[in-house]
């Protein structure tokens, strides 16, 4: 047994011991607030057990292990459905970015950053990421929230949207326009912001599925110190892109964050079509087979990327296919599952887990096809970055931001 296998076995044993109190079954019927409280408790225990910040440097509060250890732990944790959803973005993007860009030129903010990191790892503080705006979901560089110099700091005004968990967040990372007179992606600067500061107003947005985990965030003359700046003035776009790249690597699930194909097969085992077992119907067999082949391919891509990382190699760009292909197919498979249940599908629980329930999987699938890079943006990215195809026509290129027609 390799070290990694041993690590994984130990993690699994630990998780098994935690599951009765924190696992998915234990939380059924809880409100979101109760789940959050339990989640903070689990996060603190996880930190003590050495399973938080697995691949982060020891000096900043992490465990100093490899990315592979982290993947091994995460894979195990996923099976138990632990209450970690509130911390996923926080620890996934903003806190790593804080570690990388928030220390200051001479590491003068090291102690403050380390304090934040440990509190975030323990679930005591939550960070959000403030990128999207009403005027441009897919068009990151088109944002309008602005910060103007004010004394030795900045004054920020504007509005962000689709900010996950902002209503529970203590801090956020944000990209704003500091110079509207230059080309659109050149006038941006990256900051962190205190979400409890004066002038910050968080308003939850209810989504089509009935949940409200995303928010509008309004900024009205919010004061930013220059020490909160995490990029050169005008250099925020590059930092934002780094964040999005991290996001893409995390988004890997051949089920498209919906139910596993096994769940579909189990459903079919209990159904009849025209008085025959559904599994005998050619259409059902076709759906199972095509989905299996597609998902097996995505899983093999992931396994190969994993093996390459283990061998010290750079994984190929085919990893970028995961979210695009998987979420889109999840949408149709979820529709089909409901259709085949017939009128029994009308009995619907909006709070059922999307990885276990076809109803919520179907209703929330469109969000998956838009959030974290829409299908269209992902196709453009693959076409341009992987295959070298030309960019779309971009009338906004080379034009000062304040001269682009609105």
């Amino acid at each position, binding site marked *: 047994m390799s070290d990694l296998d041993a690590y994984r076995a130990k993690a699994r044993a630990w998780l098994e011991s935690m599951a009765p109190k924190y696992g998915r079954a234990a939380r059924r019927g809880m409100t979101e607030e109760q789940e959050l409280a339990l989640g903070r408790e689990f996060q603190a225990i996880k930190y003590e057990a050495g399973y938080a910040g697995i691949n982060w440097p020891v000096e900043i509060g992490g465990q100093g292990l490899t990315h592979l250890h982290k993947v091994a732990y995460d894979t195990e944790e996923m099976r138990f459905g632990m209450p970690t959803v509130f911390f996923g973005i926080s620890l996934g993007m903003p806190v790593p970015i804080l570690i990388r860009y928030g220390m200051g030129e001479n590491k003068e903010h090291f102690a403050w950053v380390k304090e934040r990191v440990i509190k975030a790892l323990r679930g005591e503080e939550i960070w959000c990421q403030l990128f999207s705006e009403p005027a441009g979901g897919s068009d990151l560089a088109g944002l309008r929230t602005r910060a103007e110099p004010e004394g030795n700091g900045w004054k920020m005004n504007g509005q962000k949207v689709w900010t996950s968990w902002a209503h529970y967040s203590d801090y956020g990372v944000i990209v704003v326009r500091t110079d509207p007179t230059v080309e659109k992606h050149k006038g941006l600067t990256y900051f962190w912001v205190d979400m409890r500061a004066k002038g910050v107003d968080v308003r939850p947005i209810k989504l*089509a599925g009935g949940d409200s985990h995303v928010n509008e965030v309004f900024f009205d003359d919010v004061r930013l110190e220059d020490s909160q700046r995490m990029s050169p003035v005008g250099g925020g776009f590059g930092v934002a892109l780094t964040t999005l790249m991290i996001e893409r690597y995390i988004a890997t699930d051949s089920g498209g964050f919906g139910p596993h194909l096994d769940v579909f097969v189990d459903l079919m085992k209990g159904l009849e*079509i*025209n008085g025959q077992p559904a599994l005998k119907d050619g259409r059902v067999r076709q759906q199972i087979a095509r989905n299996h082949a597609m998902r097996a391919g995505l899983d093999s891509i992931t396994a190969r990327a994993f093996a390459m990382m283990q061998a010290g190699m750079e994984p190929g760009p085919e990893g970028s296919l995961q979210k695009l292909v998987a979420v889109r197919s999840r949408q149709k498979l979820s529709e089909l599952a409901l259709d085949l249940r017939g009128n029994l599908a009308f009995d619907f629980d909006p709070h059922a887990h999307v990885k276990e329930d076809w109803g919520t999987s179907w209703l929330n699938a*469109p969000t998956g096809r838009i959030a974290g890079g829409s299908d269209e943006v992902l196709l453009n990215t693959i076409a341009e970055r992987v295959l070298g195809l030309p960019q779309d026509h971009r009338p906004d290129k080379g034009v000062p931001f304040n001269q682009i027609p609105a």
Partner: protein
Amino acid sequence: MSILYDEGQQAIATESRRVLDARVSKDRLLKLLEQVGEHDQPFWDTAVEQGWTALAIPEEHGGLGLGLIELGLVAVATGAATAGAPFLSFSYGAAQALLGSGHADLAATWLPKLASGEAIGTVAFAEGSAALPPRPATTYAGGKLSGTKPAVVGALKADFAVVWASHEGRPALVLADLASAARTPVSGFDNSRLYADLAFDGTPATLLADGDAAVALARDVLGRMAVVTAHEQVGGADALLHIARDYAVTRRAFGQLIGAFQSIKHRIAEMYGVVEIARANCIHAASREGQADFLLAAADARISATEAYDTASRDCVQIHGGIGVTWEQGLHLHMRRARSLAIELGNLYFWEDLLVEQLTGEAA
């Protein structure tokens, strides 16, 4: 029947759309999604006031004596509005079952009430995945009905139901007064459809048809309802097509109208294609009422309209990006309705099998 609408028919289309545009409120519909057991009363008042309930009821029973074409045109308008009650199509189905059964007394009792909106009928055929189960679990014997039907549309408010049941080991259609049936509300994703599980325990019922006659009548009723529903689906899909188109010519990204991107414009053009194909099938099917090829035409309409509404729901939301998945914006009203309509009258597999049977004589 002609496949060109005459002036009277065109007036029905225009007027029903106009009335619904004025009286349907998205906010009210959104609220209904989170309430079990409530339909949109202002919509239903409008339907009664406009005479839509009387439209397809024969004149001798107090109706207007019109047919599928006219009801279809109203359904296009109600579909566009994601109307907040399912009675138009399901009361129509119940009325057609009574008419088709030849029970003059039952027709004389119920049809005038359906026409005036005083009574509401529904149809309870499906059991889970089977739209017309070969061996229904509900049993009729000696004037009594026993057993259960899951998630019957409109059942929370209906006065009676036409039920697909077993009778001496053969299928039968019976009429059951719902006053003496137990109704358990089903909390769903499209609650104004008023789904309820119906439990019959020796409920008094009347036999409408049995054996082969029951199969023929049930299929005819299902076909007729499917044509009405297909019009409703086309209305919904067409509304989404226009919403998508209007958004694409106003919303900008990357310095231009998003409608200039081929991924958007071609998707909208494809949407137009599926909508117009479905609409043409609907018009044709409505014109074939009572003909030998009616079920085939109904299946064409049902299949293409279901595809159209599903496609339009997926694509219209996708074109909107983030705003498309918010509760307030309300596109999910269509998305939910597309799913409930896709399921209520039998899923696509059921209609594919029925179509092929009509075409080739080969049952599934």
